[in-house]
């Protein structure tokens, strides 16, 4: 995401965005006074395009596109350091999580590989009821065109007997698939802001 | 058995009377279903004293109300008084609130097996021509208009007696007769009627009281009979200074009067039922106080008239009770 260096506050402020974030996360974004503790505590700050403090600030200013398109929200590991230390008792990690969900819905996920991994993960769950670790990686590698990821680990794991070549399947797979279908059907109806996911560019589970 | 108790009472009073200023007890009246109070100074009258299921009146009130109190000089000898379990609680409350000191009364405690509500009898056999009435085991036997009626005691006992937890006097100097077994040991039984009303929807409760209290003629019999209603003619239901109530006869006035009576007795009422017994309009006024008694028990763990050293809960406080 390009960094914004000038900002017309009135023109760019999206009040609906602030409201949506607050409703979905249950957090009052205006409580943040930018002390920087989240940024100071976050071990991923080095990789973010906007540190957490600035994500909070951008959210306060209603900068929907910048926030939902940022890499930060997808590089957050939800490790809870920010939430634990926020002097204003804001569940910052929850805000980040909310932004991820919104960014998925808005189809603005900046980190394609992470999304692909997540998709494959969920596809595995939907199919088998459990995650098939051995099967997950090759598909991911294929789709992200990085065929050799973690290739170095395979021989050792095989030797340790940790790789299985058949997925574990649960009995009531239909029930799991049904949960996925219901969620998929309902996830846009809740906020009324349907932005249908184009299946062409990004796959869905 | 009743006769044995009566003879024992006569004997005890005879022994005590020289040290007493006066003896207050019950005696038979022209109505076999009811007794009347008797004030005895003359030993010859002792034989008139009676006890038993027809002695429903609570005599404790006489200690603080005319005529008894006014006739007693300050340094006089103690007054003897007959009390049932419920009456004794009134006595405890009066001692607790220092209306009477313990050494001014000689208490003849009488265990009680329940008192007869003459209204309930009248509903069954009519009021006329009751020649005699006796209690045999669990039955009331009435000879009226030449017929003998046997009525189950449960059907004619006063409402308060059915849920009685304290049939035996809380305090006494002498006990007359055998200790009685409580009819109730639980809040559920004691407050059965309260719960029954509470379980109705609020609209029905309001309608109930509207219909009951509408009959109130504000004769103040309930107030006058209450041993703990100590204001008497200073009662704010009647005064102009301050002026809480007018002499209008609308339902609000009737409600407010009964609220005044109830709130003034909150945490003090011992549940003797006198207010209800004397009501000429047949209004269940004790029920109102029973509800407050239940609140006091549940909220503050307090029952009036059980501890002469206790303090009525609305006249004190506990800083720690944050949950109420």
């Amino acid at each position, binding site marked *: 995401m390009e960094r914004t260096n000038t900002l017309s506050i009135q023109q760019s402020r999206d009040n609906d965005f602030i409201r949506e974030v607050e409703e979905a996360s249950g957090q009052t974004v205006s409580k943040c006074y930018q002390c920087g503790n989240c940024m100071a505590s976050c*071990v991923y700050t080095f990789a973010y395009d906007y540190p957490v403090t600035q994500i909070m600030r951008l959210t306060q200013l209603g900068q929907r596109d910048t926030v939902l398109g940022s890499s930060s929200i997808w590089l957050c590991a*939800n490790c809870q350091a920010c939430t634990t230390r926020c002097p204003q008792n804001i569940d910052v990690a929850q805000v980040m999580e909310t932004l991820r969900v919104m960014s998925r819905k808005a189809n603005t996920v900046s980190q394609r590989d992470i999304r692909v991994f997540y*998709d494959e993960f969920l596809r595995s769950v939907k199919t088998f009821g459990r*995650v098939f670790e051995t099967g997950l*990686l090759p598909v991911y590698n294929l789709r992200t065109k990085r065929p050799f990821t*973690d290739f170095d680990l395979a021989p050792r794991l095989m030797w*340790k007997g940790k790789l*299985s070549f058949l997925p*574990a399947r649960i009995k009531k797979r239909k029930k799991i698939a049904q949960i996925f279908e219901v*969620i998929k059907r309902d996830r846009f109806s809740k906020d009324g802001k349907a932005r249908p996911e184009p299946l062409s560019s990004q796959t869905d589970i | 058995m009743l006769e044995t108790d009566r003879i024992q009472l006569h004997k005890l009073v005879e022994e005590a009377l020289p040290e007493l200023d006066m003896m207050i007890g019950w005696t038979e009246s022209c109505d076999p279903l009811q007794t009347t109070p008797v004030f005895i100074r003359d030993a010859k009258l002792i034989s008139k004293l009676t006890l038993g299921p027809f002695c429903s009146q609570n005599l404790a009130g006489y200690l603080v109300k005319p005529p008894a109190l006014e006739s007693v000089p300050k340094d006089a000898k103690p007054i003897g008084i007959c009390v049932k379990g419920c009456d004794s609680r009134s006595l405890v409350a009066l001692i607790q609130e220092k209306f009477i000191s313990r050494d001014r009364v000689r208490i003849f405690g009488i265990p009680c097996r329940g008192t007869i509500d003459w209204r309930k009898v009248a509903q069954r056999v009519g009021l006329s021509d009751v020649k005699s009435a006796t209690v045999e085991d669990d039955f009331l036997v009435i000879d009226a208009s030449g017929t003998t009626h046997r009525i189950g005691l449960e059907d004619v006992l006063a409402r308060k007696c059915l849920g009685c937890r304290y049939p035996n006097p809380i305090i006494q100097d002498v006990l007359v007769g055998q200790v009685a077994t409580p009819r109730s040991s639980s809040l559920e039984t004691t407050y059965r009627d309260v719960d029954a009303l509470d379980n109705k929807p609020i609209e029905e409760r309001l309608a109930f009281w509207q219909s009951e209290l509408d009959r109130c003629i504000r004769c103040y019999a309930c107030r006058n009979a209450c041993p703990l209603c100590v204001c008497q003619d200073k009662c704010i239901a009647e005064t102009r200074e301050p002026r809480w109530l007018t002499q209008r006869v609308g339902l609000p006035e009737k409600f407010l009067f009964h609220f005044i009576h109830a709130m003034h007795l909150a945490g003090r009422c011992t549940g003797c039922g006198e207010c209800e017994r004397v009501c000429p309009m047949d209004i269940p006024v004790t029920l109102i106080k029973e509800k407050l008694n239940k609140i006091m028990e549940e909220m503050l763990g307090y029952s009036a008239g059980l501890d002469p050293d206790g303090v009525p809960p609305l006249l004190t406080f506990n800083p720690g009770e944050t949950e109420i």
Partner: protein
Amino acid sequence: MKRVAYYKGCSLEGLAVEYDRSTRIVCEAFGIELVEIPDWNCCGSTPAHSYDPLLSAALAGRNLAIAADNGCDMVMTPCPGCLKSLKGAQETCEDPQQRKAFVDLVGKDVDGLKTVSLLQLLYEEVGAEALQKAVQRPLTGHVLIPYYGCLLTRPAQKARFDDPENPISMDRLIEATGATAPDFPYKTECCGATYGVTRNDFVGRLGGRILDMAARLGGEAIVVACPLCQQNLDMRQKQINKYYKSAFNLPVPYISQIIGLALGIDPKVLGLNKLCVSPRVLLEDRTQPDQEAQRVGAAVKPGPNQPGGIAGGESIQPS
């Protein structure tokens, strides 16, 4: 005998089989009956949550519902990630606005269940004192680094267990085995495991920092209670060394394995042979006072676990 529903989670079927094995053995040793939730399914982990929180709640909630159907009032999972999902499901179920949707998806409510981690179960239901009494093979003389990971005690309001900044439950259990547990400043720092596959450089950086600090404190091994932390620090230790230009060789056993060892259980049965970095050093008996014992707590000798080329471990520059 305490009866606890056991939600093992996908990792413990694959890369963390030894965690599953040692968990079962240790619980059995302390008289805790683990009832594996029949036909359990994956909780969906982070991918489900970032897709839709309700998906995560429903996937995790189904397992809780089965546990309740089997007459359990406590559900234990050794995986903090799964625990987070289970707690999320409970929270969703208790939220009046989402309760109906949740119950519709899961089929019933999941009220009244207590969800705990393996560590919490061992610390609260067994306790350090009972463990100490049960020790057959004291680990006296060993220096073990307690590493809790980011999710086990955080956020405090949801985890409701131990301290979010400086937890001590694992320290106490380690000490009960006779070993020394240094005051480890990175107890709850994130190891980067989430990005094990997608961002390998994160793992190098974050995992390296943890291994580095553990080595500085003279640790012989890093004890963990999370399958992801374990895989990250153990399986990927070589990758980390490559990124970090270091030569760490720190075994990363599970707390259940360490307790099992102290109880005198056969290391192989505990699956210690499944660890990538050999845990041989842990098997040394140091209960006899000799020179080795003096190493404990003393200044750290330079050794293979010292950090490599990067001074201070990390450098921060404005991006």
